[in-house]
C-alpha cells in the first residue's frame, strides 16, 4: 500500500489546536477590549496663540529652548497633523522638543461646505503667510524655519518661492513636486479620473471618499490582512492600543475644500506646473529658482503615495546651493511612526537646522 501524500491526521490535529488557541485568544481579547485602553493621540501639551476661521496654530514649547529660530510645521490637508504626535515614544513633535526646538504646527481644522471656494492661494498667501508673520512678530525675528509634509510640503515650496525673505531654512518631507510619473497609483488615477466633478457634487472632496480611494490602493493588505493581523493579536493590549490609535488617526480625515482640490488636481497632477515653475497663485508665478534658502528634502524609498520619482527632483530645480536629498528606507507614513526611522529622521533635521540657526 502506497503512502498517502496528505497527512490528514496531522492537518486535523493542527486545525484542532488552532481552534483551541483561537478560543483562548478570544476569551483573553474580550478582557483586553473591555478593559480601559490608552488610545488617545496627540497628547503633547500645546497652546493656541493664533486662530483664523477654522485654522488654528498649535504652539509646543520645549523645556529648554536651544534654537534661536522656531520651526513651523505644515501638514497636508489630507488626514490630520496629529500623526506627528501619535503617541509617547512615537512622536515627531516630542523628539523636536527634546532637542530644544520650539515647534509651531498648523491645524487646518475641518472644512465645511462654506469653505468650498477656498483656494491654494488662500492657504499659501492667506493662512500660512498670516501665521508666518504672527510668529515673526512674536519672536521679533526676520525669518523662521519651515517644514512641510506631503501636500503641506508642496504648500511650503510655493510659499518659500513667493516669500523667500521670511524663511531661514526649508525642510520638505514626502513632498510631491513632480507629478509626471506613473509610478504611484495615485498619480495614474488622479490624471485619468474625474475626481473634481465628484467633489463638486458633494461641496468639497469628502474625506470618506478619499479614504476609500486610499484603501483601494492595496485592498488585500489594507482591507483584509490588516484586520486578520488585528484578530491574531487582539489579546495583546499594547498591540491593540497601537492599532486603535492608528485607526483613529487614519479615519480622522477632514474634507478638502473644492477649489483647492480642483486646482491641485488640475495644475499639479494633470499639468505638472509646480516643478516647471509655471504654477500661478492669484496671478503670481511660483518660480522655484526663488527658493534660495537651505533646503533638505526627505522621501521614502517604498512610498506608494509619493514615490521617489515624485519627490526627488525638487533640489535640482531650486535656486539654493545648500541642498540635501535624503531617501529613507520606508514608506509614506513609516517616516513618522516607525521607531527605527525616528532614530534617524528627527536627529538629522535637528542637526541640519542647528548648523543653519542664525
Amino acid at each position, binding site marked *: 500500500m502506497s*503512502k498517502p501524500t496528505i497527512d490528514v491526521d496531522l492537518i486535523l490535529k493542527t486545525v484542532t489546536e488552532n481552534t483551541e488557541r483561537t478560543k483562548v485568544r478570544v476569551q483573553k481579547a474580550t478582557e483586553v477590549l473591555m478593559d480601559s485602553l490608552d488610545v488617545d493621540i496627540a497628547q503633547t501639551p500645546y497652546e493656541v496663540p493664533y486662530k483664523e476661521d477654522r485654522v488654528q496654530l498649535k504652539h509646543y514649547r520645549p523645556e529648554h529652548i536651544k534654537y534661536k529660530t522656531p520651526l513651523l510645521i505644515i501638514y497636508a490637508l489630507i488626514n490630520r497633523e496629529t500623526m506627528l504626535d501619535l503617541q509617547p515614544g512615537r512622536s515627531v513633535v516630542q523628539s523636536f522638543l527634546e532637542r530644544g526646538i520650539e515647534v509651531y504646527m498648523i491645524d487646518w481644522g475641518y472644512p465645511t461646505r462654506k469653505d*468650498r471656494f*477656498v483656494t491654494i492661494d488662500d492657504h499659501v498667501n492667506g493662512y500660512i503667510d498670516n501665521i508666518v508673520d504672527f510668529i515673526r512678530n512674536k519672536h521679533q525675528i526676520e525669518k523662521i524655519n519651515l517644514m512641510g509634509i506631503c501636500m503641506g510640503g508642496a504648500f511650503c515650496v510655493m510659499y518659500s518661492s513667493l516669500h523667500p525673505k521670511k524663511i531661514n531654512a526649508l525642510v520638505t518631507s514626502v513632498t510631491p513636486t513632480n507629478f509626471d510619473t506613473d509610478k504611484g*497609483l495615485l498619480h495614474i*488615477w488622479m490624471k*485619468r*479620473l474625474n475626481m473634481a466633478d465628484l467633489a463638486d457634487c458633494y461641496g468639497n472632496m469628502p474625506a470618506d471618499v478619499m479614504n476609500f480611494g486610499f484603501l483601494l490602493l492595496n485592498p488585500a*493588505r489594507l482591507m483584509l490582512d490588516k484586520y486578520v493581523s488585528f484578530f491574531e493579536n487582539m489579546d495583546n493590549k499594547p498591540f491593540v492600543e497601537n492599532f486603535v490609535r492608528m485607526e483613529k488617526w487614519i479615519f480622522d480625515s477632514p474634507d478638502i475644500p473644492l477649489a483647492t482640490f480642483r486646482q491641485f488636481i488640475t495644475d499639479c497632477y494633470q499639468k505638472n506646473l509646480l516643478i516647471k515653475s509655471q504654477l500661478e497663485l492669484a496671478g503670481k508665478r511660483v518660480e522655484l529658482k526663488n527658493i534660495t534658502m537651505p533646503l533638505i528634502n526627505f522621501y521614502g524609498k517604498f512610498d506608494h503615495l509619493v514615490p521617489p520619482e515624485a519627490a526627488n527632483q525638487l533640489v535640482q530645480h531650486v535656486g539654493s546651493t545648500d541642498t540635501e536629498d535624503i531617501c529613507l528606507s520606508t514608506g509614506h507614513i513609516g517616516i513618522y511612526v516607525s521607531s527605527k526611522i525616528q532614530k534617524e529622521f528627527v536627529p538629522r533635521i535637528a542637526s541640519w537646522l542647528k548648523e543653519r540657526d542664525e
Partner: protein
Amino acid sequence: MKQSDSDKNFNINMHEWMQSAFNVWKQMAQPGDQGKTQAETTFTGSKKTDQFFMSSLNMFQLACANMFTPENIDATIQKSDAITSATLEIMQHMTEGVMEMQNSWIERMVRIGKETKAYSFDDMDKEMFTTWKNIYEKEIQQFFQIPTLGLFRFYQERINVAIDKQNIFSEALSEFMYTLFVPVEKSAAVFQKELEEKIARGELSNNLKEYYNRWIRILEGHFMSLLKSEEYTEVLNRTISSYTQFKKAKDDVLTDFLQHIPVPTNKEMDELYKEIYELKQKVKSLQKSVNN
C-alpha cells in the same frame, strides 16, 4: 345575416350593461340619510372625495358612453385588440431581453470551470455588463426620456433623469464590484494549482498560517496587476462618473422638494457662502493694507 343580428344584440347588451354598471357605482356614491354621520353617509368618508369620485365617474361614463354605443363598439373592440397587441409586443421585447441576459449568464457559468489566466486582466468578462447595458439603452431607457407635459413637467423630468441615472450607476457599480472580485477568483485558481502541486510532491505543510500568507501574497499581486490595468481605470472612471451624475440628479429632485419647506437648499447656501467668501477676502485685504 344571423351573425349580423347576433353582433347587434351583443352591442346593445354591452351598452346596457355599461349603463347599469355606472348606475350601481353612482348610487353607491350618492349622499345617504340625513341623521347619519359624515363617515356613514359618504361613500369614501369625505364629501370632497365623493364629489371628486362622482365627477371622475361622470367623465369616465361620458367617454365610455361613446365608445360603447352600438355604432362605435366595433371600433372600440378593434382598438382594444391593438392595445393587447402592443402589450404583447412590449412583453415580447422584454422577454427577449431577459433571455439574452440569461444566455449570457449561462455562457458565463459554463466558463467558470475553465482555467483563468493569472496576473492578467485582459480577459475580463465584460460581456454580461455590455449585454445588460444594451438591453437597458435599447428597451428601458427610452421610458425615462418620454417628453413630460403640463404644469409639473420639469419636476417629473428631473425625477425621470434621477431614476435613469440611478439605473446607469447601479449597472456601473455592479461591473466595478465584479472587477474587484476578479483578483479573488484568479488568486483562488493559482493557489489551488499550487496546492495540487504540493500535494503531488507530498510537501503539504501543517502550518495554516503559511497557506494564508501565501494566499494573501498571491491576492496582493493580482490586485496590483488589476489596479494598474487600463481596464480597471476605465471601470472605476465609469463608476465615479455615473455616481456623480446620479448624485447630481438626485440632489436636483431633493432641491425641488426642499423648495416647498422652510429649509435652505444647497444652491441657496452656496450663493451665500460665495458672497461671504468674497466679503472676507475684501476685509482681509483691507485689514492688511491698514496694518501696513
